């Protein structure tokens, strides 16, 4: 039987679901191998009966936690879709601030806090709330990686993330190294799978797929000196998607 899949979104930009809509003609092939039973962004169809739940976005309110737990209960397999779900992503940048003060300053009225819509806590990745079976990171996700994931699941193979950094893919694409231009690229420490799309376009990797492994300090100091890179730049780039300091590869 075809696996029944459902898409859910929390705090995020819905860009990851859009990548699935952007599969164009292939989406017609996709629905031959999976049954999409819920995909609010593009369809009225909705059913609470599903095998695989794809969850996009970070979790930032108690009401969202409840909804997520409910999804977890219904799903055999729960997949964190995109960096907001996998890492907390860009939403975690606001964790530097006190959320009550944020609400007050933004909406100017403390009474709002009692409204559940405004009852915001620190942004969390999905696995900080429920168990996640698989991760498809990236901001946004890579269409091909999503495709490979669905193919793996549908053909009984265990979906796997690469366990190497973006450099591997970047080298295979024969891109001139951005370090040689004195630009800090997070490619050497970021989980691969995006086919090095940013450095291939001359834009340094900003670590959206998550930090694979923290480099040794010996290495960082030498590199920064050699390439004349500013330590603040590392902080800026690292914090964009990795404010929570989640590291994929744990020894």
């Amino acid at each position, binding site marked *: 039987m075809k696996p029944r899949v459902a898409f859910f979104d929390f705090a995020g930009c819905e860009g990851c679901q859009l990548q699935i809509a952007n599969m164009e003609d292939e989406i017609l092939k996709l629905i031959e*191998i999976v049954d999409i039973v819920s995909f609010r962004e593009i369809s009225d169809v909705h059913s609470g009966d599903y095998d695989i739940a794809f969850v996009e976005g970070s979790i930032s309110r108690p009401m969202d936690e409840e909804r997520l737990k409910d999804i977890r209960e219904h799903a055999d397999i729960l997949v964190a879709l995109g960096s907001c779900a996998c890492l907390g992503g860009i939403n975690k940048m606001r964790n530097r601030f006190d959320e009550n003060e944020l609400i007050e300053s933004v909406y100017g009225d403390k009474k709002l806090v009692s409204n559940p819509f405004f009852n915001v806590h620190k942004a969390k990745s999905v696995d900080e709330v429920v168990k996640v079976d698989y991760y498809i990171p990236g901001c946004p996700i890579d269409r091909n990686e999503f495709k490979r994931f669905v*193919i793996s699941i549908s*053909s009984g193979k265990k979906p796997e993330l690469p366990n190497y950094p973006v450099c*591997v893919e970047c*080298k295979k694409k024969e891109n001139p190294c951005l370090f040689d231009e004195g630009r800090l690229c997070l490619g050497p420490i970021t989980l691969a799978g995006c086919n090095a799309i940013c450095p291939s376009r001359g834009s340094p990797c900003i670590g959206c797929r998550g930090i694979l492994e923290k480099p040794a300090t010996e290495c960082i100091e030498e590199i920064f000196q050699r390439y004349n890179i500013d330590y603040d730049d590392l902080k800026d780039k690292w914090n964009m998607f990795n404010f929570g300091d989640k590291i994929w590869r744990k020894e």
Partner: protein
Amino acid sequence: MNGEIYRLEKDDFLAFVNNLINSFETIGVKEKKGRFVFSHLESAAELRLDHDVTILPPKKFFLPPYEKMIKFNVGEQKGELLGDNAKRVIIGVHPYDIVALKQMDMVYMEGRPDELYKQRRENTIIIGSDILRVNDFSFASSLGTHVVKDGFDLMLTDLGKKVIIEIGSERGRKILMDYARNIKEASDQDIKDVENHRKALPDRYKVKLDIEKDQIPFLLMDVFEHPLWEEESKKCLQCGSCTLVCPTCYCYDIRDEISLTLEDGERIRTWDSCLLPDFTKIASGEIFRKDKSERYRHRFYRKGLYIPMRYNFIACVGCGRCITACIPKIADPANVFNTLSRRKHESKGKLVYRMIEGVEAESHILPEPAVIRRIEPLTENEKLFEIELLSRDSFHFEPGQFVEVSVFGVGEAPISISSPPSGDNRFELVIRKVGNLTNRMHSMKEGEKLGIRGPLGKGFRVEDLEGKDLLFVAGGIGIVPLRSLIKYVLSKDNRPRFGKIYILYGARTPKDMLFMDEMEKWKEVDDVEIRLSVDTCPEGMKWNHSVGVVTTLFNEIEIQNPKETVSLVVGPPVMYKFVIKCLEDAGIKDTNILVSLERRMKCGLGRCGHCQINGIYVCKEGPVFRYSDIRNLPEVFQ
């Protein structure tokens, strides 16, 4: 220079290149954001012969970073080798890259050639170019690879207004004659100009090796336990760049990709790197060469010792690409070899290393069609499969050899043959559910099709065992390859050729014991002693044998004639150290201990690099080894 040499004026040379572009897929050196790459030429004006080095070597045209090897259909399990018929010309290949290609040819074209590599190589014309600009990190002159005498079809020396062209092959001569105009024989002055250019080259290199290149292997034998490996690897980002840009690195990974219809797909070969942590990972999750410093060291040993021992060349041509690509700048072979030679005295351990005779694989890339004839569940996690090859009547192998089982859409996995040689085209495999392929196998039914490559590797040489007492020691699933040999020696015809037989077999729990019914029969054969043990016996389970690790069984037997006893040991990696100690305590010589090792044998052809233990390929020189041959290899039993 002593071949045929011609001269073209610059304009005529450019016209020659344009003619090539119109007739062939023509590749040349082009600029890319201040660096250089080999890429499709659209006009001769794009060609650069003043490059220092390209980001990737021309290797990418023969062993592409991403290569579709086989096109397959999942349902029918039918595969077809994908070729690449394009007639290519590559212009601007520097001498060191030509040397690297010659090395690559030895790896991929000798013995059983790699069909895909060979086809591309034969369809490609190499037009070399003398080095005009020296890369800052290159040390080619120290390795003698800044010039080259052969390995090209044509060799260009761009002297500004004129280009001097040396003929390196008949087809090179033909292509020049057919596509160039106003060809003039080179004058003495032309030749002198080229020779002067080449003579002056070595002085232009900033980086130099302090030792003779022939001394590198000897140096490395002395410094295996050198503090440098730890010091430098601390800075390593494990990005794999040094190996990915290397013209002499040739390791690869294989995986199956299927389309969204789940009906068809391709078997893909991609570049892999021994610097990456998962390089040696096997299906059960075990990783060999686990430490970063070991992987860092391994690369230099491949370059300077392992490959030289195997192929008789230093697997580094001094192009400087690795150090250019390395962000912490620790990948430089010249610097590492120079430092080691200066600080040789700091080493704490040597590597005693010699080559072991291997077996040329009886296999190509494409698996042979086969069918599952019989499936017998053995335990919760193990099933026995009887496989029949469909394309041949007989399948000859020796006990201890393995096959690559292929299921298109899932992949391949190395599996030991567990039945004795029978002469017909059937054999048995015992498969434990650990990874994607074995999981799939467990869900397959009798009559389903799959693919087989093999037999592969070196098995137990039965003629060497004749007249000896045999002591089998099996741990867990290690009984599987041993069963092939046990059944062979216990057969009526063969039994008289061997002495006393001991079988020691241990598993985790009684439930995990394999072939208990067969053991009963084996016991009945003359002069066979069988001892069994389990690590633990859960309460309530019946077990009339020993409890404890397999080595406890040594207390239950008396080895009557240790000098004339050969022991055959197969088990999980942790087992060997302890069993071998028992065997040596019992007086069995290390030349009489045979072990079978498990590694990630991905290609089975001695190429992909995943099963390498120091310099040996388990798929080629093993999986069965004489303990005396490998006992000094530090990576064997970690």
